[in-house]
């Protein structure tokens, strides 16, 4: 029997689901191995009977919690996809402001209609089995995780920095071009997407294990950023990490 797969979204731009839909050719091959039973972005039917749940988006409201718990109950495997779901993503920035203030700033007069609490990733609410980070996810990595799950292999997300993939791609280092790049402390898996296309890594996949925080700070300040700029740069995507919070 084919595994039944569901996609869910929380606070997000839905770009990760779009990345899946954009797989087009591969998607046809993929649906010969899986049944997609719930995918609001792509279909109208919806079922609560599924094996694997891919979740996009961060958790920003009280009402998200029971919904997530229900998904956890229904699914054998829960896999958050994208920066928002894995680490809070850009949405996590709001946690560096006073909640009421930021709510008023975003929603203005209608703020009272919008319930909100501190942004958190999916794993802060329910246990997750694997994660596919990135803003958006790398479709190739998504495919590789799905293939792994289908053949019963533990998916592996790289535990080395973007520099590795950037070197393998033979790129000129961003610092050689006078640009700032967070690749040295950001988890790889994107194939050094941004540097390969001429712009420095923004850290969307989150930090590697044991990043050398002090040294990275020095690299960034030498490149012309103030310490405050450097912290803000990391907070775009990596605010959830202890190293960046402080």
């Amino acid at each position, binding site marked *: 029997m084919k595994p039944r797969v569901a996609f869910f979204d929380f606070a997000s731009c839905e770009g990760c689901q779009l990345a899946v839909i954009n797989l087009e050719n591969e998607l046809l091959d993929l649906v010969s191995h899986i049944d997609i039973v719930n995918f609001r972005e792509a279909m109208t039917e919806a079922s609560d009977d599924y094996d694997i749940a891919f979740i996009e988006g961060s958790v920003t409201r009280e009402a998200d919690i029971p919904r997530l718990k229900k998904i956890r109950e229904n699914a054998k495997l829960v896999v958050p996809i994208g920066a928002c779901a894995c680490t809070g993503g850009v949405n996590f920035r709001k946690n560096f402001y006073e909640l009421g203030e930021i709510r008023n700033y975003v929603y203005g007069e209608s703020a009272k209609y919008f319930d909100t609490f501190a942004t958190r990733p999916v794993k802060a609410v329910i246990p997750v089995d694997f994660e596919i980070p990135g803003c958006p996810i790398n479709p190739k990595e998504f495919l590789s995780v799905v293939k792994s799950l*289908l053949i019963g292999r533990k998916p592996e997300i790289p535990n080395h920095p973007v520099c590795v993939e950037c070197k393998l791609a033979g790129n000129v280092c961003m610092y050689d071009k006078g640009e700032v790049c967070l690749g040295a402390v950001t988890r790889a898996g994107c194939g050094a997407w941004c540097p390969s296309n001429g712009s420095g890594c923004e850290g969307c996949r989150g930090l590697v294990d044991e990043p050398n925080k002090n040294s990275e700070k020095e*690299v960034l300040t030498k490149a012309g950023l103030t310490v405050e700029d450097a912290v803000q740069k990391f907070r775009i995507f990596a605010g959830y990490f202890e190293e960046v919070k402080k």
Partner: protein
Amino acid sequence: MQGFLLTKENIKGLVSELMKSYRVVAPVKKETRFDFCEIEKFEDIRMDYDTTILPPKKHLSPPVETLLKFKRSENKAEPVFDNTPVALFGLHPCDIKAIRHLDQAFSENNNYDRHYLAKREKSLIIGLECQPYDYCFCSSVGSTFAKDGFDIMLTPAGDSYFAEAGSKKGEEILKSIQAKPAQESDAKKAEQFRAEKEKKIVRKFNKVNASTVKELMEKTWDHKHWKELEERCLACGSCNLVCPTCFCFDVQDDVSLNLNDGERKRLWDGCMLVDFAKVAGGENFREHRSQRIRHRINRKMNYLYDRFNSPTCVGCGRCVRACTVKIDPVEIVNELSK
């Protein structure tokens, strides 16, 4: 062996001769830097390059290389060998020596790695004598000049190049392009070029040399400098990945979307990366960055010395260039020998 004198026109002739039977790989401009790429025309070659982003190794042992193709359902696998003839053109002496190291590493102990060797045996190496640039330090590790390891070696001699054959194949090629035999004065000009190169090398080990650096490394295992480097190093692995003598690899399986056909691939790996010495059970045998830097520098200067009868490092300077915090083997060795 007899020398030849090649004019620029002759070099062009040489390259077009090579292009008939080889994929010709040569230094070309890539944004602000240079890289070894397959060329389509002679004009793309930059004979004046300083160093390349990645070493020419990438054309003999590619960053990602398929070892086996398999079918899961049948439990069947076939090895994959790529022996497309490749001519590596314009290699500096350091990179030539590095390939000698790889040749040995991939054929030691009767363990012949045919995936590398099949390609290597069909390859041709055309060396090009160089001038030092901001990062290299070849004289400290004994790789200033290439005595062997090339099929043809080109050394600038005035407006032309003095060419020596280092192999039968090389000699045949030089003869086939009807290169003119060199005069003694041409050989002298080449000699002069090399002498000047040697004089211009400023980055050096100040207390040890290629044969004594090993001893220094053995005495400085517990040196406090390793801990100091831990503070700076980002453990990003860039130094490993741009190194012409790093040959460590990881092996990974890929399956296609039919979930049946797949490939077992090897990928360049680096001992500076956190998982390099970590076993599945969780134990990490070089957990700290200081341990990993010590391992890398020792591997380049000491550990493999007895096997290669020389430091493994060839002093190309790519690691320093690639390092965002400029960790530098020359500085390290000089600090350790203070």
